[in-house]
């Protein structure tokens, strides 16, 4: 009998379930040397509700990945605020941001970023190991996730022995291993075939619907955007609220509407 996974009790980041999972207000960010600073994000504001699947679209260099890095607390904005379930993240000390990331955010990368020296099982177990969970409990939880994503028999393999789709599934399993309420996904299908990409998006949608996770997806793939509840468009570092798309009931956002919005924005 598999041991049920116990969510860690130490979760200071979420003050209340009624608060948005992520709230971004008036965000500004620049890069480059002081004399030649370039704006990456300008006055960006949005919220993600608990259990919502939000997609941010934009062309390359529009600031999508920077937005994710800031949302994850990997970097600090020049101005503005980022709240993770009501807790201010942007002004926190690096140590607090790390703690918030550990307990509140799962991260899925475009390039998978699996540690090549570790097996699949060890990679998935990393967030739990970081929290200090016992090895046996880690294994049970990881095996559960691997089984769920159809790669239960690949636990002992190393990343280079997997296909691209498998690697990304391992990456998602790793993001879910810590049972964090918010998933940040950076072009998760960017390196995958169409079929593998579809499977990954199905998986992410399932995570949102079945597990109640909030998902922030950045992508430039219109098909991926259709799996979300809401689509925002980021152009030259700023959001375009007028072009926002929303899911209607159980119906996915039509891909044509996404294409149309992209055309209107000249993307």
């Amino acid at each position, binding site marked *: 009998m598999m041991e049920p996974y116990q969510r860690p009790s130490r979760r200071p980041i979420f003050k209340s379930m009624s608060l948005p999972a992520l709230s971004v207000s008036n965000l500004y960010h620049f890069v480059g040397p002081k004399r030649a600073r370039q704006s990456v994000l300008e006055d960006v504001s949005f919220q993600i509700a608990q259990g919502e699947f939000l997609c941010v679209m934009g062309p390359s260099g529009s600031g999508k990945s920077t937005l994710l890095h800031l949302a994850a607390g990997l970097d600090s904005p020049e101005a503005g605020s980022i709240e993770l379930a009501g807790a201010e993240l942007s002004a926190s000390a690096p140590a607090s941001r790390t703690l918030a990331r550990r307990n509140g955010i799962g*991260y899925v990368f475009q390039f998978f*970023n699996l540690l*090549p*020296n*570790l097996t699949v099982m*060890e990679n998935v177990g990393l*967030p739990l*190991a*970081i929290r*200090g969970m016992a090895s046996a409990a880690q294994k049970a939880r990881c095996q559960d996730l691997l089984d769920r994503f159809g790669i239960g028999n690949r636990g002992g393999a190393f990343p280079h022995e997997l296909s691209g789709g498998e690697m990304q599934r391992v990456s998602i399993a790793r993001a879910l291993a810590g049972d964090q309420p918010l998933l940040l996904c950076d072009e998760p299908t960017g390196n995958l075939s169409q079929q593998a990409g579809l499977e990954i998006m199905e998986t992410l949608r399932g995570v949102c619907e079945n597990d109640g996770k909030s998902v922030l997806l950045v992508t430039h793939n219109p098909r991926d955007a259709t799996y979300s509840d809401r689509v925002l468009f980021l152009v030259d570092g700023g959001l375009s609220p007028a072009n926002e798309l929303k899911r209607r009931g159980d119906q996915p956002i039509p891909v044509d509407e996404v294409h149309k919005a992209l055309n209107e924005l000249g993307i």
Partner: protein
Amino acid sequence: MGFASTVIYGSLRRRPGRTLFSVFGVALGIAIVIAIYTVDYNTVLSIGQQRTGKQQDWAADLEVQPVDSLGDPNEALAGIEGVQRTTAVFKSSVEVYGQGTAGASDETARQKVTVISLEAERAPSMGLYVLERGQSMRTGERDVLIGRSIAEKLGLDVGDTMMIAKPRRAPRKDCIDGELVAVKTRGAATVGDPFVVSGILSYMDLGRTSGGAICIIDFVSGSELFKEQFVRPSYWVERDPDVDLESLRAGLGQSFSYNVREGSVVGQQSDERAFRNGVRLAGLMALALGLFVIFHTLSMSLVERVREVGVLSALGATRPQILRVFFGEAIVISVLAGIVGLSGGLLLAWQMLEHSISSLGITDVVRGRFEVPWAESLGLSGLGMGIALLGSVFPMLRAKDSETVRALRGEDLEVRGQTHRGFHFFLAVLLFAVLPVVFFTLVPLVGEGGKELLSVVFLGIAVMSLLICTPLVVPGFMAILAKLISIPLVRLSPFSGLLAARSIGRNPTRIAASVAAIALVTAAFVGLRGLTSSLYYETKDWASESVEKKIWISGLLDTEWRPIAEALRQEFDVLGVEPNATRIQAPFRIVGIPLEEAGNYGPLADDKLLMSDFAGMNGILVTSRVASQRGLKVNDVVPIATPSQGVKSFRVLAITDAYGYFADPHERAYGVIADKHMASLFCLDTDTATGLAVRLKSSDDLDKTMVGIAKVTRAFFGESSPQASALDFSSGSDIRRHELHDITRDFIVFDLVIFLTLLIAGTGVLNGQLLSAMERVKELGVLRALGASGKQIRNSVLLESVVIGAAGSVIGVLIGFGLVFILVDALKILSGLDLPRPGIEFTYLLAAIGSFLVTIVAGLYPIWRMNRMDPVKAVRTG
């Protein structure tokens, strides 16, 4: 497994090459330094034992005798640098018997023992003896400490009374004007004076004298006991080990004659110190280079692992958690290196000793001895491990959060310049300041010359660190160099050259570190070769004055030498003949030469005034080595103790190596006086000899002349006589060859250290190349996918090795050329040798070629690894 252990285990398991070569680099550095210390430790033990082996009784470090005019010798001695403690002493033999058990006439109950009179208030603090029971004697009291043997034979214990009687003296003779004159006749048995046994001596130190047949009394009581007899007291001196023997000798200089107990000064002679300190410094260099290699291996591996750090950070691992991963990995590598280094070092030391390699050159004396100085070995091992740990963790402490974001963006993963500069500053401080200070605390340099030498050493280290760290601290310099280098490379091989040039340009710090490692070893080799050349030229200079026109005859059976000299003069152009018979040791070796012979060559032939002074009573010629070791100049005074005429002062007339050298025993530090003084002051027989040095007019056909001299000498004794067959002959050219060969042979220990150090440098280059290949695995995979052949990629690595090897060799030779002067100056300070500065040697070119080849070989493993890479896997690994 916990988080840290999971990541550490995974990293070590999946990167066995990196782990192995990191461990190897540090272990080799630790092993070399432990081997050197252990060999030196055993060398001193073995040679000390050999020198004191014949000596049954305990002896003080130095025994000195004051000149008659000196007031209070103890006070005078206290003011001399290097004198720690002193006591007046005189020795005699007495007869002892127990009170009431045997009378003065009872010959059978009397025991002959050695009595030593020491100053009661000074002797105990010198640790001359250990008491089994009882207490030490008191000043002016008739207390006696007795040896175990006497206590047992006479049945005495603490509190008993023992009678001490002056012996019936044998007829005593003094040397008066060259004649041995009887000054006392044999006396009758004397009645003993009562002494109370205050303590029994343990059978150690002085207590072992005469097999325990010893008694020690207070100096004042002893003087009273022997008041009617002539007693010349000496002074025992305990020397300060931190002060050079030469300084002490110079301090004793004009007021004391002295004898040094050889066993107490093993490895303390100036040339021995120079050699031992040289070996120790070579060890320090090896350790520094070993750590330099590990620093850069781990620093480069950090670059390789920035993405990993980024991922871990994105997953919520805190900085301390990530630090624990790197620290844990460094601990594993350091501990493994410490264990391997300690075991390897001891194994190497054992093998060196078994092959007669000592810290004083090649000598069979050290074979069969192997004792481990555990405290120092463990300390050195710990030092290597500690610094490796510090160096490996530092880059992590400096890695900024922003690197995480860059890593996740898939940007070029290079740790930023500021971090590099900080790291290399830290590295420079650690390797060139902290390491030498801790090293010299654990393994101090031998002798006080260390103080002067240290400043030279630190100057050398500063120059080298400046030269070596400059390209590290300023990567821009290397970037410019890389651009320049890329031009011919691209022309040579457009594709491979471009790859190599780009790789060099992208990783200037890595290339600079590899270049620095190779340069350091090349410089050390060139420096050492320069030093050997300097010693070589010094010996050549000495040989040209001392031995080049001489033939030595040995094996004479105490023969009248003048007729032989006459016979040789008839046949050959002989300028003079020096017999070896008249030699004494006070305060250094003094050789007597006949005036009529020495006046025909050398400075005595050139300067009539000098000759007349030399013929006078107080003239001495000293060799250049004695002069430099003792700081003697012309007109200085050398006190020489005589057996019955007190201490005589001799004036230095000239500094020359032209007279008095004999190969057995080989000693270049001596003085020469006229043999008539030997006869009058020491009553030595100046007419017979066991060996002769024949000075010829010319060195032409010396070996041919030697054959002729052998023929004539044998004919002189009769071809079939036992004397003729016992004769042996050697020429100046033989001795010169032998001496020069010895220099090369003794320096094999340095060659060994340099070779091992070159291995470390090679490991550093290999690590760098390997990490570069691993770091570029994706890029190389893509190139393979685009159609680049394995050969093209291999050539790019090989070209990189060529650049590193060429730059390292050239820079190394240039630095080494400067280092030669520093080393020669350091050795001058240490040894007091008048060393010439060598010019450009052919071996410098060999050093450059050797280093270059090692660099090329070091590139082969990364090439092999790259060949094993699957390009498909390389491009797929995320």
